[in-house]
């Protein structure tokens, strides 16, 4: 008796050629794919019932010089086996001028996640309707969530440099 994860893995491997899928945990399926097949893999999974995009995350692997995008899918289902599954779809893109297609056509709620990643990692999502700033007020040379952005140094350079008013008054 194969469990839901194994079945889904076989289905995926049949439909797509250049992906690696792995059932690491009982309820967890990890799929690695290229950046241009992400959207088709996601829509395939969406059609197979995994219709809840829980999270789009990004990991900055600075040693390998790549950004790894992680799409986490679960299912809105009352069927226990399906509802328990977590599917992690991973893809890697370069750190310089990172860009890939938006997945809004497949999952509507991807919009703020992509906006956030654009802001915090500098990833450009092609076809996204509004890549405007979401959280930040100041502009940063390096997007702040990248590993080469040193927040402690930044604090010293910016916030600690501002003088107290009393000191300023004493100066004048």
């Amino acid at each position, binding site marked *: 008796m194969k469990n839901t994860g194994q079945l889904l893995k076989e289905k995926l491997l049949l439909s797509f050629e250049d992906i690696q899928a792995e059932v690491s945990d009982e309820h*967890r399926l990890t799929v690695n794919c290229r950046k241009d097949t992400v959207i088709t893999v996601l829509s395939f999974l969406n059609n197979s019932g995994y219709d809840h995009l829980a*999270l789009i995350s990004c990991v900055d692997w600075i040693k390998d010089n790549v950004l790894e995008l992680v799409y986490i899918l679960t299912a*809105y289902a009352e069927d*226990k086996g399906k*509802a328990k599954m977590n599917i992690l779809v991973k893809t890697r893109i370069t750190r310089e001028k990172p860009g890939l297609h938006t997945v809004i056509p497949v999952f509507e709620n991807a919009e703020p996640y992509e906006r956030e990643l654009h802001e915090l990692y500098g990833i450009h999502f092609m076809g996204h309707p509004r890549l405007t700033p979401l*959280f*930040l007020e100041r502009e940063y040379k390096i997007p702040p*969530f990248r590993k080469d952005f040193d927040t402690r140094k930044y604090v010293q350079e910016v916030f600690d440099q501002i003088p107290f008013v009393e000191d300023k008054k004493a100066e004048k």
Partner: protein
Amino acid sequence: MRELELYFGPQHLGMVGNFSITLNVEGDRIVKATANPGFLHRGFEKLMEQRTWIQNFPLVCRINVVEPDHMELMYAMAVEKLAGIEVPERARFIRSIYLELARIGSHLFGLWAYANMLGFDTVANWAMYHRDLVLDLFEELTGGRVYHIYIWPGGVRRDFPEGFKDRIINTLHTIGSCVPDYDNTFFNNRVFYKRAKNIGKITCEEAKRMGAVGQVLRATGMKQDIRKTEPYAAYDQVDWEIPVRTDGDAYSRIWVVRDEMIESVHMIFKLLDKMPEGEVYNKIPNPFKWKIPDKDAYVRCESSRGELGLYLVSNGGDKPYRAHFRTPSYNHGLTILEKALENESIADVGNIMISLYITAPEIDR
């Protein structure tokens, strides 16, 4: 009619936390609403990368101030999963009781916010008083009123003190005895019904498409709760029901919250009855030298607002390499809110926003 741009928040009595919405209004109707978050952005996930595994506990609980406990749980569960730590049976029960108490506290806070929004000061004051009673329990158990840092990898920080069980029961009886009062004055109030019925309506299909979770989803008729589908702590040890309503409007959402609160109270009684004796804590390695193998994990739980998740990556070091919280308010506040506000009246902005159960710190992190 002339279109007007109206700024709702961040300085506004009807705002939940520090959040802002830009409304394009025509007369009294909202044409377009644009959520404008980020007033509470502290870059938590970046800060977590600079602190050791244990140092992160004071940090994670501050992500959502209304309900820090589920954040602690999430981080502890992720660390346990990465490091392969088991949790003793008694600690599981204590966690469940503790989290349900937190859920009641959080729902009472939500009730305060909602009643206050509708100008119903009386119920708001009562709800806040009852929440304080719950916080008193937390204070005795953990030493903190708001931030507890009680859940720890491998269990909980300490066992229940002497006689604590009775005090939980007493407090819950006090709150429970006021449920008829709440029902008579608030939930069955005709004016409340008129204000909340058919307001901010979303169908089940829309809710699924836009990533709704928690009450928002359950109010549209979908019976989903992670405590049932992927049980953690001791939720699989007792019987309980998922409260569901079918209309998907503000009225149903608040009723789901009310039913959930009552369900939580019953659940705590059942958990207290079944609670086994034993250890509450499995020793973890020396936190200063603690390194966790190179892995990643996604864990999720049902917080009082819906699905809360954490994607945690370790690269074999003594600090997390990357942490990303999936918070329930994120989609509610940024996708669903904009949709739900369209074509509603200005008077209902806060009404809808609070019935969607949005907390700003969760969105901004």
